[in-house]
């Protein structure tokens, strides 16, 4: 798995107009890489046919 670099994460933030300090950038990069890594094994699941809806409650909401 390829880690995102701080430069790449900084560019993503800039694209959204989000100001990020250098101190924040290092930690945000670690956090984002950790989330990507944690969700990586889910790619092995048969997800193509699963509809990504929350499936709210067991009865009509209203």
């Amino acid at each position, binding site marked *: 798995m390829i880690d995102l670099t701080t430069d790449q994460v900084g560019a993503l933030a800039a694209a*959204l107009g989000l100001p990020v300090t250098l101190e*924040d950038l290092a930690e945000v990069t670690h*956090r984002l890489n950790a*989330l990507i890594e944690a969700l990586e094994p889910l790619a092995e699941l048969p997800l193509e046919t699963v509809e990504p809806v929350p499936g709210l409650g067991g009865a009509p909401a209203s």
Partner: protein
Amino acid sequence: MSAGGTDLAFLGARQIAALVRERKVSPTEITRLYLERIERLDPRLSAYITVIPEAALEAAHRAEAAVMRGEPLGPLHGVPYAVKDQFDTAGVRTTSGSRILKDHVPTEDATTISRLNAAGGILLGKLNLTEFALGGTQHFPFGQPRNPWNLDHDPGGSSSGSGIAVAAALCAASLGEDTGGSVRSPASFCGVVGLRPTWSRVSRHGSFPLSWSMDTPGPLARTVEDAAWLLQVIAGYDAKDPLSSRVPVPDYARTLADPVHGLRVGIIRELTSGPETDAEVREAVVEAARCLERLGAVTEELSLPLVPFAGAIFMALADGDGAGVHHRWLRTRPGDYDQGTRRRLLTASLIPVSLQQRAARARALLRAQMLNALARHDLLLCPTAHQPAPPIAAARGTITGRHEVAGRFFTRRSYVTPAALAGLPAIAVPCGFTRSGLPISLQLIGRHFEEATVLRAAHAYERQSEWSRRRPPGTN
């Protein structure tokens, strides 16, 4: 304060309401008692952000007059309560635990507050929380909340003050909000009962949002009976929350003491005996399951293979929603956030859509796994937290590597987020103490809108144990 006063403060909300009704305790007396305790004990606990003594005493005088006139009394008449500072209160500042809203004074009560007040409850004040109900706050703007069982330890979050105030008897009961464990985690760490109702069972109107498909107000209390009592008051359709449910609200007290004989309980293997679960926690939870067996429940271990991923799935989805809520302030007022909150929201803002889609689809599969299990079992059982309350210092400081993130954020959330991701009701009930004196908590998860079954099993267990009767040191 006399021992009698302390005993009165530690009574349940329902017991206090009964004493008020019988004119054995006056609303003014009990309100003064809690205000005195807050003044004396809260400086070292930081459960409260705002206390409203004048308004509380005015409400108590009105409640007392109503009793003396023999007027019809609501179920919480004269009962002092407090709420997480995430809920709007008309004329009382509502900060959501953030400097950004430090001067925010709503003009309208949240629906839950309106209902608690209409039932006769007396609002004492607003309770501390992790900033904007996200976890990971590094420096609390309104004081570091502390666990009453050990002041150096985390009280849990995000409804931190709601757990502390109930455990230390700084109110009779409290209201929290549970997006991904924010009622159950502080209940677990502080040794009290915390109920997350079915999503949509309780109106979200007037509660600062985090994730629209998971935000759920819920009570924290010293007994399961009180949690049922409060749920009865706040549950039900609200036109101001279009996603609130019209499913009828049953009488929770009516079935609370029914037997649990024959109830089928599935023990979630990955969370109860998995490698992440602390040995003392596992031992206490297994013993609680045995207790339910002795009461006639039928237990069986089962596997839900996706639950270890629940924490990461939750953070990809709920944090993504939160990033949307906060986008404007993140751009214009980043320095007004706590460092931990800002970094978490910045991260969430950058999650690739393809990854969020993967998480959303995995959520649907996880939900299906849980509903399949609940087709065969009436309840699912597991620990509320994988470990007892950690030291506050353990969650402090800059993250210097991605492997730290899993330990701080994903693992513990995988115990409380499965119910949140599936929209299911779940309760945290004290089930023991570690050798070092920190509370341990049992979690029971039920089917959609079957809070009555969750409460019945929790009540049956609670009556067989003595954990709820213990008091934190230094709270007399």
